[in-house]
């Protein structure tokens, strides 16, 4: 008989314990709440899937989910192309390159609630540079009153905060392209656009995938900045999923629905990331399949 070494279990035990305490147990607490109605610390009732059903029918939640999806798509649509463009226009070598890298990275180093505060002041029409400038230009801008203005301000703030991440990732990807590709392209008479389309963009596929996933997940979970900037208003124009969830769990102390919704939220992110990842994996290799069918 083949000898079995049970020591392996012992060796993975620390990791199992770590993951259990950091991820599995907290998640299970949420699962626990999601199937019970907690009336007081002593009294609780098992309600099955009732909270899930209630949450799924919640109109406010539908609104928040739609706003969230719209916001995340807008973030990707602006930050990814802008990040690529920034990376392409950054100097590749010398002290200028280092200087630009530092400048570009600055916004990434600012704590999130500070970002919210910066933009809250920046956008004020009485003392804020941007708000006052817009007001002087005769543009009726008021992020605390107008839903469109608030939504746009949150979007611009996120672009300002996170486009550098995309740019830095793309810059690293561009640096990794061997010189021979550019030389060959010059010999082959490729235009600047052809170099971008056939060399740079395909070679950036890996880092772009990381950038899209990171930006998607982060923007889908955005909380601090809009909370500080607009508090979710005016009305609920900038109430995204996280904030809605916090209102439910902490504000109204509806632990059951909040837990049920947390799980749904988690599954939505997991599902969307799974779809995005698989789609991006196939983008570059799809024509192979087409060829073999044709």
């Amino acid at each position, binding site marked *: 008989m083949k000898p079995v070494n049970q020591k392996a279990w012992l060796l993975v035990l620390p990791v199992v314990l770590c993951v259990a305490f950091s991820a599995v147990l907290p998640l299970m607490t949420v699962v626990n709440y999601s199937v019970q109605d907690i009336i007081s610390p002593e009294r609780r009732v098992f309600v099955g899937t009732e909270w899930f059903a209630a949450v799924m029918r919640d109109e406010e939640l539908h609104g928040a989910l739609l706003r969230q999806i719209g916001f995340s798509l807008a973030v990707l649509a602006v930050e990814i192309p802008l990040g690529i463009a920034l990376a392409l226009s950054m100097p590749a070598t010398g002290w200028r390159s280092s200087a630009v890298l530092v400048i570009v990275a600055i916004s990434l180093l600012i704590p999130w609630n500070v970002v919210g505060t910066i933009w809250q002041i920046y956008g004020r029409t009485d003392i804020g540079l941007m708000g006052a400038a817009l007001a002087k230009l005769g543009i009726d801008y008021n992020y605390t009153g107008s839903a469109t203005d608030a939504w746009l301000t949150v979007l611009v703030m996120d672009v300002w905060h996170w486009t550098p991440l995309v740019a830095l990732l793309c810059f690293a990807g561009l640096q990794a392209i061997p010189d021979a590709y550019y030389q060959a392209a010059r010999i082959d008479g490729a235009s600047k656009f052809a170099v971008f389309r056939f060399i740079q963009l395909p070679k950036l596929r890996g880092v772009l995938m990381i950038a899209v996933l990171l930006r998607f997940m982060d923007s889908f979970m955005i909380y601090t900045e809009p909370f500080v900037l607009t508090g979710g208003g005016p009305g609920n124009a900038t109430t995204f999923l996280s904030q809605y969830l916090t209102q439910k769990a902490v504000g109204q102390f509806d632990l059951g629905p909040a837990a049920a919704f947390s799980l749904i939220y988690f599954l939505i992110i997991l599902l969307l990331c799974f779809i995005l990842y698989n789609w991006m994996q196939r983008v570059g*290799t799809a024509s192979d399949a087409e060829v073999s069918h044709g």
Partner: protein
Amino acid sequence: MARIDLDLAHAYRPNPQRDEDYALLPLKMTFRDGGAYALLGPSGCGKTTLLNIISGLVTPSQGTVSFDGVDMTSKTPQQRNIAQVFQFPVIYDTMTVAENLAFPLRNRGVAPDRIRQRVGQIAEMLEMSGQLDRRASGLAADAKQKISLGRGLVREDVSAVLFDEPLTVIDPHLKWQLRRKLKQIHHELKLTLVYVTHDQVEALTFAEEVVVMTRGRAVQVGSADALFERPAHTFVGHFIGSPGMNFLPARWANGLEVAGRPLAGPAPSALSSAGEFKLGVRPEYVTITTPDAPGALPAVVSMVQDVGTYWLVTAKAGEAVLRARLGPDAEPPKVGDTAWLGVLGTHTCFYNRNEELIA
């Protein structure tokens, strides 16, 4: 197709002072229209720099490059209409093999019918017809390099095709095939080809004329025969041939003196004023002879190797090491014996202190 004249020097750093600052020392060279040339030399000798200067990827810091007498120094590779194949395969990942081959033509607005025809011909030649619709990124390294070669050859009207060690990543047996193919292409299309390599066999079999380079200097331009028989520089004697040329210290003191011994025999008259110099003789031309024969030098045999088709005898004449190649039928001397080796003959060369051929 064009004749290429070079009269230039290149340094990657500004204000070059010493010879070491130059990637390419001042040189003047002409590549004949329709000729097949090889640039041969060890790594770092400047051959790739020279190639990139011809193609226009690098602008020389001094001097000019002209094609058919027209100054091209500041022109781009596209304006020079040059094709170049690099050491490592460069393919466009998202394209099929056919699209890769068509890329240089498409960028120049060639008619689609003509492109299809040309891509077909090139694929046929490289034996890739069956893979035309496959994505290039999934292929093996040698197939990718064949695509790179194909892109270099797909345009018919190029001034020259430049190869920068293109067969490095390719299997030995396929290497041989591709080299023959390149020769055949050269024969059919009469293109000017310049081929960079550090492999002497590759250079000598491919090229009509070989430029031997070392440390940024082109030390000799010549046919395989000339490089073997009359190396213009000790580096050429040393680098070409396997093993390379033997060099023995020599001087003139009322007659030829080699490795500290007077050597009887015919010596070129030019040597009488040369002072100290070197005698160079290829192992192929060293003979085993008798003590009283002209040009015989005594040497202690230190090693005898059977290298299959010949014997390689290593011996020491004074301090100098001497190698001799003897035919398979010859009776090799025994290790430890003193053999009399004939080093003077029509193939013997003499070099001055600057390592240049004097006689």
